[in-house]
């Protein structure tokens, strides 16, 4: 199962929608850096099948509340997510 990491805002980049097109059942998606701005609007429907995470510190730094459907994690949990998934794919364009 793939771990997708999105680091760019959906308001300035197609990273999240490109990622959503590639997500398959059982994949996980982690929002980091400006990628956490995805929390401020509806998530793409195609991501319904994915487990969603965001970096708690990056969301807090931007004043964004994390909804219950998304798990806020720290760096240590991010490392373990990387060990639990293969491959790990970063989306940043």
């Amino acid at each position, binding site marked *: 199962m793939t771990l997708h990491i999105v*680091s760019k805002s959906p308001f300035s980049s197609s990273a999240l929608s490109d990622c959503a097109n590639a997500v398959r059942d059982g994949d996980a998606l982690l929002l980091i850096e400006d990628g956490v701005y995805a929390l401020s609007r509806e998530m793409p429907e195609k991501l319904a099948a994915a487990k969603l995470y965001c970096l708690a510190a990056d969301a807090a730094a931007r004043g964004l509340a994390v909804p219950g459907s998304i798990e806020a994690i720290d*760096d240590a949990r991010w490392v373990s997510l990387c060990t639990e998934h293969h491959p790990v794919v970063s989306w*940043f*364009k």
Partner: protein
Amino acid sequence: MPRPAGHFTIWQSMKFSLAVYGAPHASQSAATALRFARALLAAGHELYRVFFYCDGVHNGSALSAPPQDEADIAEGWQALQRAHKLDLVVCIAAAQRRGVLNSSEANRLEKPAANLAEGFELAGLGQLADAAVNSDRLITFGQ
């Protein structure tokens, strides 16, 4: 990740490599990569190599001087390199283009100064391919 196995706990250590594409001054990505490196080492995993590519080569400049109230990312990499004997590899072609040179490259290219920071080395893209093949996980930190 520790895994219980009967009376024992098996510590499943993995070999990570990181590819860093962002300059420290341009985006959050280099700072994120440094934090991730610290977190994976703290969890007992191995960091096989950090490969600095594209604008990421600026992480290896000894001449950057960020303001005192900002994190010094290059110094952060160097401290981690000293503590864990890390292999910090800066892509040589990307570095030449952006003015990050060691002394032998500066001499060869007849440039007036060298600025590759202590603890980093210049090498080709083959080292990224090698890291991809020889690591359990290759994590990319984009621009």
